[in-house]
């Protein structure tokens, strides 16, 4: 109780209240505009938050992160275009509801489900915080190295069908963070004798380039879309009543969101996929899924809104971000000399609880704002794409230039913007680059510190937590290899149009041998050679 009171004391400030309001309203607006998204907004606002107190800066960023998904459901439901990437599943059931004349029901259901997901995850994590505070000190250098390695591997293998290129880009991220003056032996690494590379490549420059400037380029080179809006009539409260009728779907989806959010590199998409599949399999009307099912909408929206609070767990407890948005927030901690990790949980537990309480208040604010302001808010969807591109490019300048007032940073950001644009055109992920940069830096420091205390390599995993993490890494890699082999087998079966005979090389040779030995095989070959002779005689 004392902990919660001291956390409330941290939050009882006018600047925190303003940050909560700005974060919630701003996040909803940003989420509601297709083509912007929380990553772009956080990347742009990041340097502006450096001059604020850590709690104020983080509240703004958390506000944008937590509330953008609420806003993202508006265009997903009304015009079949997800406002943020994670609202893609909302279109499956949200838009069919709009098409059959129930946009108000779909929106209020999405808001209610999102609210439940957000509140559920925050309450879970406040209750879970004392347990985390006990577990976090068990993480030394070796364990944090292992957790960072696990996070990086999970990010790579999560990109199904693109794991090789995701791995390449993660390695590129690790390489980027090695550029500059190495801090232990004071040697230069890949600076090519240039002074501007001596200080290394700033994470925020890369983030702004890959997320904000590249998005501006995408919008500037695209065509404007014509938007047909649906009129909304009546109140928005019916969704709250409907949500109460599906407590099982909402509860299980929120639990999936919390669990998946805590695992680095997994996040919203897996949580949504799992909860949607669960809801469909256990529903009395599975045929409605994808055609405007209220359960499907609840599953998708509850799961994705339960993730932001949970995603803060690896960041706060271990200092390891699990995705791009939390990686950006890590830089706010570093700027203020607040080191997230086990120490934060031991010494500043009230700060951690204050952040969770801020998220709780934020969810209430967003719900209230949306229940009363949706009809005015939907107008932002009409902003033309290319004009949005102009706005993002203008705002990106603030983000990059205010960092160090360096034109070189801007050149680098523009270069990363072009790289990000190419990645977007090719549907390749840019998140592994960011996580490679952040986790690569952590891994370098922790491996050096961890190996200094061990005599043999196997001593590195002689502590229980390190050993468990090592086993999880092996399991994840083994599962991934099995999945790749299964995909390969399915591909061969599809190419050969057979799923009965084995596609392995040994079996192929065995069947060929049998064909040679059997009488039928001899007859077939004789017929083929006769036909071939006739053909060659023609010439």
């Amino acid at each position, binding site marked *: 109780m004392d902990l919660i009171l001291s956390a409330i004391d941290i939050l009882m400030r006018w600047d925190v209240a303003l940050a909560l309001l700005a974060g919630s309203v701003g996040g909803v607006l940003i989420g509601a505009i297709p083509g912007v998204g929380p990553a772009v907004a956080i990347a742009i606002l990041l*340097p*502006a938050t450096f*001059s604020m107190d850590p709690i104020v800066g983080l509240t703004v960023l958390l506000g944008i992160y937590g509330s953008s998904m609420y806003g993202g459901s508006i265009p997903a439901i009304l015009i079949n275009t997800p406002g943020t990437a994670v609202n893609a599943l909302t279109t499956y059931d949200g838009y069919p509801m709009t098409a059959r004349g129930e946009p108000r029901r779909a929106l209020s259901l999405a808001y209610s489900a999102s609210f439940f997901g957000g509140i559920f995850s925050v309450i879970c994590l406040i209750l879970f915080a004392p347990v985390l505070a006990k577990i976090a000190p068990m993480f030394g250098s070796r364990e944090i190295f292992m957790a960072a390695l696990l996070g990086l591997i999970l990010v790579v293998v999560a990109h199904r*069908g*693109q794991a*090789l*290129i995701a791995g*390449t880009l993660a*390695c*590129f991220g*690790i*390489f980027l963070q*090695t550029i500059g003056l190495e801090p*232990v*032996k004071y*040697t*230069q*690494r*890949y*600076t*090519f004798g240039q002074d501007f590379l001596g200080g290394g490549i700033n994470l925020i420059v890369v983030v702004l380039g890959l997320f904000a*400037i590249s998005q501006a*380029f995408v919008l*500037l*080179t695209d065509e404007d879309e014509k938007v047909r809006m649906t009129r909304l009539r009546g109140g928005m409260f019916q969704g709250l009543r409907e949500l109460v009728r599906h407590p099982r779907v909402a509860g299980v989806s929120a639990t999936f969101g919390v669990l998946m959010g805590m695992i680095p590199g997994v996040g919203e998409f897996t949580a949504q996929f799992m909860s949607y599949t669960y809801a469909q399999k256990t529903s009395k009307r599975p045929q409605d899924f994808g055609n405007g099912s209220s359960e499907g909408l609840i599953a998708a929206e509850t799961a994705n809104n339960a993730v932001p609070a949970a995603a803060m767990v690896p960041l706060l407890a271990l200092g390891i971000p699990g995705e791009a948005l939390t990686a950006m927030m890590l830089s706010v901690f570093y700027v203020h000399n607040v080191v997230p990790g086990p120490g934060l949980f031991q010494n500043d537990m009230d700060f951690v609880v204050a952040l969770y309480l801020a998220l709780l208040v934020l969810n209430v604010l967003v719900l209230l704002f949306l229940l009363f302001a949706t009809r005015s808010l939907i107008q932002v969807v009409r902003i*033309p794409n*290319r*004009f949005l591109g*102009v*706005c993002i*490019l*203008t*705002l*990106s*300048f*603030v983000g990059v*230039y*205010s960092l160090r*007032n360096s*034109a070189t940073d*801007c*050149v680098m950001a*523009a*270069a990363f*913007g*072009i790289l990000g*644009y*190419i990645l977007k*055109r*090719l*549907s*390749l992920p840019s998140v592994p680059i960011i996580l490679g940069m952040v986790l*690569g830096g952590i*891994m370098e420091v922790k*491996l*050096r510190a961890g*190996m200094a205390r061990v005599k043999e390599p196997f001593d590195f995993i002689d502590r229980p937590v390190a050993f468990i993490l090592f086993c999880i890494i092996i399991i994840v890699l083994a599962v991934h290899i099995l999945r790749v082999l299964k995909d390969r087998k399915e*591909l061969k079966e*599809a*190419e050969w149009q057979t799923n009965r005979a084995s596609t392995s090389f040994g079996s192929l040779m065995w069947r060929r041998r049998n064909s040679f030995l059997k009488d039928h095989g001899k007859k077939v070959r004789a017929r083929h050679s006769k036909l071939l002779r006739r053909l060659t005689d023609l010439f």
Partner: protein
Amino acid sequence: MPSERERRFVGPRRGQLVFALVMVGVALLLLVLITEQTTWVQKTKLFAQPRFWPAVAIGGMVLLGGLHLYKLPWRRVSRYDLWEVKRWGQVFEFAGWFMGYVLLVPIIGYLPVTLVFVPLLSWRMGYRSPFMLWISAGFAVAVVVLFKALLSVKIPGALIYEYLPGSLRSFFILYL
């Protein structure tokens, strides 16, 4: 007609081969330069060597990038790849706009350059109605007021502000 392998490929075909070739080429170039650009320190453990992590990163890029290139279902650069490369080239124009904006702000000032940049780029993008140009100008003023005046983001005063009279000069340097 695309083969099964092509059909199952995640993402569009255009540009993939060119990107993979460039990626592997850059990785190989970096690998060749590793002895020149990093140092091997005597009497230091392997994991504490300054060269260790660049070697891991570039080794990973070469290995995984090479495997990605090998697993691509296409072996020849088609005309679609070349069209895609041309499309990538289009963004250099906007990168140029951005860099022009960056270089002019320290000389002419954040507010004046933004007030010209946003409507001009909007004009270039085809929004030529007076309404959109006024919206652009309003957006430019709002951005400057929000970030420079209210949030006190670090953007230095322009060179031409030095020529303004006393109190106006300090007001412009601080807030615009």
